[in-house]
């Protein structure tokens, strides 16, 4: 057995160490931010904090939670995540069902499919998109965060491929018994594909929560920003001019510890759903889509 040879054992020890180091490298930056967020301002500004908080305090979280703009941005993010995900799922389900049928059952299926895929591989670019949003009056409205991305072609294709794997006999039996397509869709495909839909929901939620650019582009008033856009403005651009806030408040949200607390709160929902996500994507759906 190769497991017992000396050279393999040396390799194995080396390999375990390497994997451990790489895995820790992936998480250390986040741990550092967490440590800073729980440290006192003096320790953080003096760059003393490593991976463990110094002078443990909840001060920065208290300050963050007392900021009404921050709280409102969380609310906007929750709203867009819930509404956006719901809408995406309904539309993906309704679109994937007919597109998963054979050409003989649904004439012109390929044309429709390509219409969907075309939007995925070609875009007019940023400017025309911006103009369209402006012309249809979505600027500065909450719905601009939800509607343009409501049809998620990628997730639709994943679901479509999943539907194809559902045994045809189920559908045929139902059709013979006199069920219509709506009945088949809701009474057979919906329950059968619930695990798949749950996975898509998780992915869609992550996407919604993480989106920041649409908010930056289409919303002029920082008070309407979702959390990701808020963080982008405060932490990356360090630009608070659009928020019409006093210098005192500005100091409040721009210290290092508070910034770290904000970053961590922004990442928290992802960390919470992450275990569920991992359980699903490894088990198949995403992988299935890329299989030969």
């Amino acid at each position, binding site marked *: 057995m190769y497991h017992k040879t000396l050279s393999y054992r040396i390799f194995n020890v080396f390999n375990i160490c390497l994997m451990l180091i790489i895995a820790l490298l992936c998480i250390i930056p986040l741990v550092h931010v967490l440590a800073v967020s729980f440290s006192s301002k003096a320790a953080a500004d003096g760059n003393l904090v490593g991976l463990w908080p110094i002078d443990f305090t909840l001060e920065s979280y208290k300050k963050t939670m007392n900021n009404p703009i921050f709280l409102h941005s969380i609310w906007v993010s929750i709203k867009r995540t819930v509404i956006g995900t719901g809408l995406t799922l309904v539309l993906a389900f309704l679109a994937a069902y007919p597109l998963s049928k054979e050409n003989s059952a649904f004439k012109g299926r390929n044309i429709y499919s390509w219409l969907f895929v075309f939007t995925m591989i*070609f875009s007019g670019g940023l400017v025309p998109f911006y103009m369209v949003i402006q012309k249809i009056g979505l600027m500065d409205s909450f719905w601009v965060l939800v509607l343009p991305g409501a049809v998620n072609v990628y997730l639709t294709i994943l679901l479509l491929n999943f539907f194809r794997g559902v045994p045809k006999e189920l559908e045929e039996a139902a059709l013979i018994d006199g069920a219509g397509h709506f009945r088949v869709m809701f009474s057979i495909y919906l329950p059968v594909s619930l695990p798949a839909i749950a996975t898509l929901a998780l992915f869609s939620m992550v996407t919604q929560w993480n989106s920041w650019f649409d908010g930056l582009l289409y919303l002029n008033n920082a008070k309407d920003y979702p959390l990701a856009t808020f963080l982008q403005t405060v932490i990356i651009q360090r630009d608070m001019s659009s928020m019409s806030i006093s210098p005192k408040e500005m100091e409040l949200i721009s210290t290092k510890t508070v910034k770290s607390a904000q970053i961590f709160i922004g*990442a928290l929902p992802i960390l919470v759903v992450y275990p569920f996500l991992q359980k699903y994507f490894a088990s198949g759906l995403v992988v299935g889509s890329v299989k030969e």
Partner: protein
Amino acid sequence: MAFQNYKPWLGLTGSEWVGLDNFRYLFEREDSLQVIWNTLIIAVFKLMFNLGVPFVFSILLNELRKMVFKRFVQTLVYLPHFLSWVILGGILIDILSTDGGIVNRALGVVGIEPIFFLGNGDWFRFTVVVSDIWKEFGFGTVVFLAALANINPTLYEAAEVDGASRFKQTLHITIPSIIPIAIVVGTLALGNVLNAGFDQIFNLYNSLVYEKGDIIDTFVYRTAILNGEMGFGTAVGLFKSVISMILILISYRLAYKWANYRIF
């Protein structure tokens, strides 16, 4: 719009048609040529490493026999994929800062002068590529690990009987078995040659590194939305979209031909 000297107050119908002027301008302006070059160089490095690193990593990961430990490693390396560049950008700006960022502090311990990761053009490109690998390599292994799990174990048993070492087995069984999937992944990634990662660069760059770090997407955003050169911005964007679409179509065709891969 791409063919107009577009003025918002004149609208689509009122603006002057200028034919291909915007496109000619694109190839005459020095900064836009530099931007195209930046995009290509950053994207190509990312494509290569984002294929190679997960490939090697998944083989090594597959050698781990303690399932608990394997799970643990997987859990940690997949995580950055799900965090947005806003979060990661905020973290990176903090830990890479020359003013006591944790990375430069660690380098200081081994006697290296602080490096201006996000303020020096060459280091910026380096940082962009490395941080992108850091974020995505874990998730990239998902596909390879699935392929590795599908390798027929009798192949290894036969090799074992014939006295092949583990290294030989890897070389002659493992690697050939996952090469096809690597080809598919690599081919499909071709469509991204002009995508150097807007989210990432936008959240990491600053005016110090515009020369070497500016890419097509960020350039379009700044010229069109911030500077108001709508017509020109549209032309650059359209140029990119068309090239990208052609590349995607070619890559789909190739993936279909070589590996019988279809998206739906």
